[in-house]
């Protein structure tokens, strides 16, 4: 169900500030929900203690799907259903001729599967409104955001830490996640 949720967020001026804030907040028991930055800040994922993405596993499985698909398609058409003599090549299993199609379909399925999975998981979909806490989070400001319903969030401690590391604005907001 979509309902209003309460968020706490701090706005920073400089990537180094949000990086340092992320390090010190992660050292406490408070959990950062997410950080919004106009560009990739190196080391921020590590500082936030983000878990490793399982996208690589998805890629592997998608690749395997594509490979199996290509192999079975070629086997069915060229060996099982309608064997043809092309250039005198062995009719049973002309492995080298199967390679390019297997390669292409593996790449195709991996690329599309990985891309689509990523978009689904990251909720970058048509019709989904982006989460905007601070209008300039996509321009020149850096936003660190907390879910106020998360367990053990010490609002005072987090506010203090963010301010200490240069957050010029700390606010609470109530909104539907994913829409303003």
């Amino acid at each position, binding site marked *: 169900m979509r309902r209003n949720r309460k968020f706490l967020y701090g706005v920073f001026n400089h990537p180094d500030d949000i*990086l*340092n804030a992320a*390090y*010190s907040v992660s050292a406490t028991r408070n959990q950062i929900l997410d950080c919004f930055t106009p560009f990739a800040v*190196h*080391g921020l*994922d*590590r*500082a936030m203690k*983000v*878990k*490793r*993405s399982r996208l*690589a596993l998805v890629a*592997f499985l998608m690749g395997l799907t594509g490979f199996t698909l290509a192999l079975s398609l070629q086997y069915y058409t060229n060996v099982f259903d309608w064997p043809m003599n092309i*250039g*005198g*090549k062995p009719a049973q299993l002309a492995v*080298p*001729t199967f*390679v*390019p199609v297997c390669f292409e379909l593996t790449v195709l399925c991996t690329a599309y599967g990985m891309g689509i999975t990523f978009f689904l998981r990251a909720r970058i979909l048509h019709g989904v409104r982006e989460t905007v806490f601070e209008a300039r989070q996509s321009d020149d400001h850096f936003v660190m955001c907390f879910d106020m319903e998360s367990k053990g969030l010490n609002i005072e401690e987090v506010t203090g830490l963010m301010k200490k590391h240069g957050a010029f604005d700390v606010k609470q907001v109530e909104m539907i996640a994913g829409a303003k």
Partner: protein
Amino acid sequence: MAHGNHNIEITNQQFEFTSKQKMFTYILIVLGIVLLAAGYFMEKSNAPASNASEITEQVLSSHEGGAAEGEHGDLVTKRLWANLLLGAYFTFLLGSGGLFFVAVKNVANAGWHVGFKRIPEAMATYLPLGGLFVVLIGGVWGVLGSHYYHWSTPGIMDTDKILNGKKAFLNPLFYCAGLPFFFAIWYYVQRKLRAFSIAEDNDNPNVNAKGDIMNDKWFNKSIGISAFWIFFFGFTFSITAWLVIMSIDAHWFSTIFSIYNFAVLWVSTLSSIHLLLIYLKAQGYYKHVNDEHKHDLGKFMFAFTVFWTYIWLAQFLLIWYANFSEEVTYYNARWTSHYMPYFITNLLLNFVAPFLILMTRNNKRNPNTIILAAAAILIGKWNDLYLMIMPGVTGDYGSIFGAMEFGAIFLFFGIFLHVVFRSLTKANLTPVNHPYIKESVLHDVGV
């Protein structure tokens, strides 16, 4: 990694070529020579004379151009020559690969590799010696001395129409004067890049308030010459591969051959850099080079393993599919022959093993699995070169491997390692004043 990452301590160390390491390289060299001699004389006394006529017959009937011809040296000596050529060419590839690594990174404005940049630089210092070996063994001995290349046999151009058509390219002058000329230019570029890099170490780094090195004079100088060399290398390396390796089977040609050789060069160079890096780290050097750099090198190895396979298949598939008799003899001599085990091993070691080993993230960051993959790649590339050279020189005779094969590879790797270690001692292990050294130390591939 601590936060406040502005104050990076870059500790420079000086590599020490210990007597133990020196002894190791000497033992490799001596062992190589002993094995070569032992293998040679053992094979000689086994006298493949009865063997030779059979092979000559078979080879001639299969219209295999460059193979055994009886009158020009016996098979055992040819095999010795082929092994020496392989060793010289393989280590020469590693040398030029080191230079290519440095040049490509310069042109790409890359920073991540700067921490261990002195390893490929040291590998590149083998270039003049490696080029000399290739020219001496291939040109002076193979072309001028014994005519081990089929096309260099006196009088062949009058009787062989196909070779006559390639006369402008396949001639002793081009081989023995052209190659040294190209290598001299490579050597010049290597000297320049090395000199710039060392001059940078001794120059004022001009550090600004944030701790960044602002003096990029030497780095900027090396970009232009690197760009020129990559362009030049593309053409001249192709010619080198055609002359030294492809002309063994002078009737046959493959338009992708030079890229294929480049793939061999690049994958084995990356593996060697990685192995040297792991070794030096185990010796206590390169403290600032960490899993992040190794991860990227591992990715490189993984990617170019697939590249090699792609090129290998591109060459194989077209020839196999078209089935033209003048092209397919090449694979006849390598697949449907006594070389079949090598052919299978080639794919297993160069594609299957490294592809599976290097697939996961953890394996790319773990030195043990990297050593495993790099060993598979280097042995596989030796095997690949063996398949390129040996069937064309000795026919089926070379399909059983012996002491000579080990000897040649020990000898040349002994020399190569000696040169690399010696060059490592001659400069700081870390280019401390490189404008990208900080970026390299902070390099992070993410979670």
